[in-house]
């Protein structure tokens, strides 16, 4: 096997300079006349975004982290011209302080199980031949040769695959509905309108292995009897759009898309539709309206899109990750897939883990793994010596889970029972510096802004809830507010037309359920324990510690601090904007600025 230098070119690694690294390797190898023997290639996201730019040397799988341009010559000398490693660029385990030579030894990867992401970070996403070399398009080939549409649906049924977009509806059942419809024209749409803040799974898959999604669509369209497909992708993901466009062109050139695929009488064509920035378009009927060129507003169901969808024709909308999983199920067998996971949730799930953890990035784990294993074994625990407070799952539709729920197995049903939801797979870990009331307000503010305004419960309900939360975080809340929030929240859930409204109250309801004491603290004691709500905190200079060094007053952007040099300084609370710069800038040896919340701050 030819030796290869793989450089991660996911959005994260590109922003930390991976393009220059690739050019640097090409240049350096040419100078040394090694460019014929060594292939330099870029890949999609390898997942360990925190450590980017990542460089992998194959076939040994040597794993270099945070590689800079001036490391290139040393890597070539030690690992290409010789069979050694550059010790200082290997990943160092934060706890054991040992270094790992290959990524297989790194905890972040060890506990993962990569099925849908198996090619991400290992092949050049702009090369159809590399995808084919990994048995790509074997799935659709086999389907066309050996299987009827009924067989395919049966396979997906046995595999137990449930939709990865959030709600977890069994994929086979959706397909069956559509297959049963009599219609000349049917459509299959891939929903890549990944709008959840804090989620980037679908983007990474499209950027890292676009052909897998196309192959999944080919198989799905064959099963339901569709001959036309669309990928509806966020315009905010230019790299994903670009790689998908390249992949579609390559597949067309090979005859994998178009008429009479692999000599059969099955034909399928695929188009990209770029979204224009509306979160609600992730909802099926709104997405359809948007493709038709209208305002992206949902409509009541039934009729379901499987019966009456795009331009009134039977339409199936599947999520990127679901479609990317299909070729693996066909190639390796439905029973194999069903052997992974829990009773009700089969297979694996991709998560984007971010927030206050040491190892942020993209992971794929078997269903049923505990949140504790994800956060402490894979993500390496809480960053900056912080203390775990909560993990938010499912974005604006999901909820927050507390410390005592860390051993909950992660699957569709257990999360729903806990008041959260799988969502598309964003996990955001927060520590004690995050105020849960403010956090709930953040999500509700998002849902309120993105509400399309069509139905009153969502449009008005989220606004009312937001106003109440605003009052609470400003210390103006009343005792009745918590009950009122729950009351309106339940109304919005029950009365809203689409998934956006039906789930928008979840972040508020789960934080009330699990962090009620924080709401009560804000209301009754005017106290924000996390010291995050500006109206409930104040900065003060401690007389016994201040030496009058003047650093705080020099840094204060609003001139709120007065005092002559070498004399004790004071903060004028009427002018102070609570930006926290004085607190950050006061030298550690003095620590003379203190941050108060609660009754103390109210006295000022």
């Amino acid at each position, binding site marked *: 096997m030819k030796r290869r230098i793989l450089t991660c070119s996911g959005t994260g690694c590109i922003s*930390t300079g991976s393009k220059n690294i690739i050019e640097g390797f090409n240049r350096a190898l040419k100078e040394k006349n090694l460019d014929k023997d060594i292939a330099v290639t870029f890949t999609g996201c390898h997942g360990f*975004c925190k450590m980017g730019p990542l460089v992998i040397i194959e076939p040994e799988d040597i794993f270099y982290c945070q590689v800079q341009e001036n490391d290139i010559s040393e890597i070539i000398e030690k690992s290409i011209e010789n069979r050694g490693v550059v010790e200082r660029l290997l990943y160092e385990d934060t706890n054991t302080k040992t270094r790992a030579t290959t990524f297989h030894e790194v905890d972040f990867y060890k506990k993962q199980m990569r099925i849908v992401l198996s090619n991400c970070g290992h092949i050049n996403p702009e090369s159809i031949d590399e995808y084919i070399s990994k048995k790509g398009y074997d799935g659709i080939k086999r389907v066309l040769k050996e299987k009827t549409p009924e067989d395919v649906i049966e396979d997906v049924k046995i595999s137990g695959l449930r939709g990865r977009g959030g709600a977890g509806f069994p994929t086979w059942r959706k397909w069956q509905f559509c297959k049963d419809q009599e219609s000349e024209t049917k459509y299959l749409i891939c929903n890549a309108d990944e709008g959840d803040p*804090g*989620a980037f799974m679908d983007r990474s898959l499209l950027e890292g292995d676009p052909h897998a999604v196309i192959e999944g669509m080919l198989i799905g369209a064959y099963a339901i009897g569709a001959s036309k497909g669309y990928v509806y992708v966020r315009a905010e993901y230019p790299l994903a759009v670009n790689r998908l466009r390249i992949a579609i062109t390559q597949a067309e050139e090979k005859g994998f898309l178009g008429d009479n695929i692999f000599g059969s009488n099955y034909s399928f064509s695929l188009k990209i539709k770029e979204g224009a920035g509306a979160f609600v378009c992730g909802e099926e009927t709104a997405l359809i309206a*948007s493709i038709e*060129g209208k305002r992206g507003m949902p409509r009541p169901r039934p009729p379901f899109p499987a019966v009456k969808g795009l331009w009134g024709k039977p339409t199936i909308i599947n999520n990127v990750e679901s479609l990317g999983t299909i070729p693996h199920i066909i190639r390796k067998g439905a029973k194999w897939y069903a052997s992974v996971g829990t009773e009700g949730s089969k297979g694996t799930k991709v998560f984007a883990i971010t927030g206050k953890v040491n190892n942020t990035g993209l992971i794929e784990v078997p269903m049923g793994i505990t949140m504790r294993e994800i956060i402490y074994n894979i993500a390496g625990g809480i960053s900056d010596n912080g203390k775990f407070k909560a993990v938010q799952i499912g974005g604006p539709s999901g909820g927050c889970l507390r410390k005592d729920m860390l051993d909950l197995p992660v699957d569709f049903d257990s999360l729903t029972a806990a008041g959260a939801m799988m969502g598309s797979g964003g996990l*955001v870990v927060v520590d004690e510096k995050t105020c849960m009331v403010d956090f709930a307000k953040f999500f509700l503010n998002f849902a309120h802004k993105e509400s399309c305004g069509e139905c009153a419960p969502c449009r008005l309900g989220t606004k009312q809830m937001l106003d109440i939360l605003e009052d609470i975080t400003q210390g103006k809340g009343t005792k009745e507010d918590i009950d009122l929030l729950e009351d309106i929240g339940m109304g919005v859930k029950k009365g809203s037309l689409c998934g956006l409204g039906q789930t928008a109250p979840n972040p508020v309801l789960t934080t009330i359920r699990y962090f009620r004491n924080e709401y009560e603290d804000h209301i009754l004691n005017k106290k924000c324990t996390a010291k995050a709500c500006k109206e409930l905190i104040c900065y003060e200079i401690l007389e016994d510690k201040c030496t009058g060094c003047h650093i705080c007053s020099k840094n204060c952007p609003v001139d709120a601090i007065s005092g002559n040099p070498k004399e004790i300084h004071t903060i004028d609370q009427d002018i102070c904007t609570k930006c926290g710069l004085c607190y950050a800038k006061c030298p550690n040896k003095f620590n003379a600025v203190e941050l108060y919340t609660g009754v103390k701050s109210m006295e000022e």
Partner: protein
Amino acid sequence: MNKGLDDIFSSFDGKEEELIPLLQKVQNTLGFLSDDSMEGIAKFTRIPLSKVYGVATFYAQFKFAPVGKHIIKICHGTACHVQNATAISEKIMTEINVSDGGTTEDGLFTLETVACIGCCSLAPVMTINKDTHGKLTISDIPKIIKQYN
């Protein structure tokens, strides 16, 4: 009609389903959607002007006023929010003296707060044009802004 618009329209049929791609193409080419170009689109697609506006104003992507030379997008996604994106936003607003959605008087910068750029591992993060700036601190801001003129 504007020559630039005719060039754009030549690659479209004028069907209703093309409305959003058309708006996108016009905005990409001309920078924003002027009243004239909106009228041009309405005529070309035979969709009532009110409806063209109805669609365009629904989506966050479309702009109806000229934008600055450099577009700053500050991410306020969840990961950025918990890593203090609000303070970063405030610093930028005071640094270039413009509010969210506004353009500086000299036309150099337009500031936008966006929901999620998808670089959560680099939080807090912002993009200026096509450059991504991650792991921001308040004191980084003036240096970064100075690189653009």
